[in-house]
């Protein structure tokens, strides 16, 4: 390519065009290449292979056996799948709705703290649970939830209430235990994201609204919330993925079986069991696609709700 001496060669035009192209675009293409190369190898290929696997019966060792849509058909009739679906949606919705609302209000309150140093301390305090490993904090919560000796039951009995049988009985308290831990861990994270969004809003808008006689709650609902919508949407999509793929917390608190009556068996835990417990890799792949479809649908609904996609 780099042979300028062969002047009459018609290839030369081609070579110099390539060289010009490389000189103009070589840097940006080189800079974005790592992402696309690694994604193709470790992202796209596994996803496509998973799709192929989802039509097969495979234990991971012997030869894969084509079964058509059987895995997908089995999903619809598998009571454990539906139970884990219910558990996951229950945990995700009951944890996220109050958590995101509280985080938004808290962000608004923390933004009112004028003393900078103090605001920093408050923000750091709220954020700490999100920094630590979910396994570690789940360990700590498993001691708070102790049935006979746990801290929460000590509080309950000392104010005259009956203690909670967290892990036994009908399994009713397994989900609340996971939900409380989840809210504790992610409340501060979402609050900080909202706060970052709030602090990016031009304060002259508030002043203008106040001059026009708007009340505090009107300002919050009519100015703050609409301007925060991109940030809220970001947390919603992140929460959808995080909520539907919740794994660490139920794994540590309830165990791989999901605890009493499988009340803590989430989709991700169920998938983990199918693949790495029972070796049903084909079925687990179909399972993973079902979870992805669910996430896509919820994310699209979120996008629609907030007016994206309609605007264009």
């Amino acid at each position, binding site marked *: 390519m780099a042979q300028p001496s062969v002047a009459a060669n018609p290839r030369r035009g081609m070579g110099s065009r390539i060289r010009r192209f490389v000189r103009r675009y070589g840097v940006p293409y080189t800079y974005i290449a790592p992402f696309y190369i690694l994604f193709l190898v470790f992202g796209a290929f596994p996803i496509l292979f998973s799709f192929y696997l989802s039509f097969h019966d495979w234990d991971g060792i012997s030869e894969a056996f084509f079964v058509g849509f059987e895995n997908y058909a089995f999903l619809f009739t598998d009571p454990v799948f539906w139970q884990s679906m219910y558990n996951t949606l229950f945990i995700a919705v009951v944890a996220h709705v109050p958590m995101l609302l509280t985080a938004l209000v808290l962000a608004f309150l923390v933004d009112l703290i004028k003393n900078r140093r103090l605001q920093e301390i408050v923000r750091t305090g709220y954020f700490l649970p999100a920094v630590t490993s979910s396994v570690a904090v789940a360990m700590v919560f498993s001691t708070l939830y102790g049935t006979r000796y746990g*801290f929460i039951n000590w509080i309950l009995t000392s104010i005259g209430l009956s203690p909670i049988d967290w892990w036994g009985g009908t399994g009713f308290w397994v989900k609340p235990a996971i939900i409380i831990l989840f809210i*504790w861990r992610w409340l501060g994270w979402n609050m900080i994201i909202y706060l970052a969004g709030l602090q990016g809003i031009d304060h002259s808008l508030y002043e203008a609204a106040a001059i026009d006689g708007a009340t505090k709650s009107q300002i919050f609902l009519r100015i703050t919330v609409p301007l925060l919508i991109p940030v809220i949407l970001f947390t919603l999509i992140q929460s959808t993925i995080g909520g539907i793929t919740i794994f660490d917390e139920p794994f540590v608190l309830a165990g791989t079986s999901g605890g009493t009556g499988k009340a803590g068996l989430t989709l991700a835990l169920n998938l983990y069991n199918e693949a790495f417990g029972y070796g049903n890799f084909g079925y687990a792949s179909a399972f993973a696609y079902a979870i992805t479809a669910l996430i896509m649908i919820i994310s699209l609904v979120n996008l629609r709700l907030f007016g994206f996609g309609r605007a264009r």
Partner: protein
Amino acid sequence: MAIGKTAREQTGKEPSATAKIPLRSIVLWALVTLGILFSAFPFYWMFVLATQTAQKVFSFPPPLWFGAEALSNYREVLEVIPFWRNFMNSAVISVTQTALVLLFSAMGGYAFAMYDFPGKRQLFVFMLATMMIPGIVQVVPWFMMMRWLGWVNDFKGLIIPGAVSAFGVFWMRQYIEGSVPHELLDAARIDGCPEFTILFRVVISLLKPALGALGIMTFMGSWNNFMQPLILLRETSRFTLPVALSLLKGDPYRGTNYAVLMAGTAMAVLPILTVFVFSAKRFMAGLTAGAIKG
């Protein structure tokens, strides 16, 4: 960052708004204090239990102040798991992965923000779309691939697939677009700086706030990652901290000694808590900067 500052300075100018109504500020303070207690108490409880004997943990009422068993619990943690080995494993994986993510995100974000090239829009949209793919779809085929490559029980299987992040590229692009002027690149070119090195010689120092926040987010994610190391790593000496901790709970021979479990947990949590407390200010500033530009 500059915009974040001015916004806060503006709020600082009108303190009368809250000073007028003390009741409101009392409610505000009560709420905020309650929230902080809610966040901090489990950590306090963890440290308290970590310093008790196994019997004391199960006393009623439970211990609320520190005991004297910190050292013996620490020794017992070391008997059950090779804690410092696991700690180093976590550190090696997290630091390498974070460094690679920062490098590739700065490069990708810079290319998308500062250059025009054929297919740019499509490539960018494609990258954003990959963010919507949950990691869980990839777990089964990822593990197959690791087995096929012979990377089971090998840190490569965690570091290399995790070396790029669509979110990271997106995050850096947003920041660079808002804070790096094209004139700076032109000036560097006139000074004879080769195109390929402008990013590393000139631009990178402007990206510190965004890189700092992205670095902390990536490090946290990597340090706390549980499902993938749980599936990939097979020997106790190769485990990362979260996987090793889950072993402390499940010790089938001794039953769970909660004082030791809490000691191990505290030892795992303390370093990252310390690092975060000291970097919190910068992290928040970077996050705010990113959110404003984004």
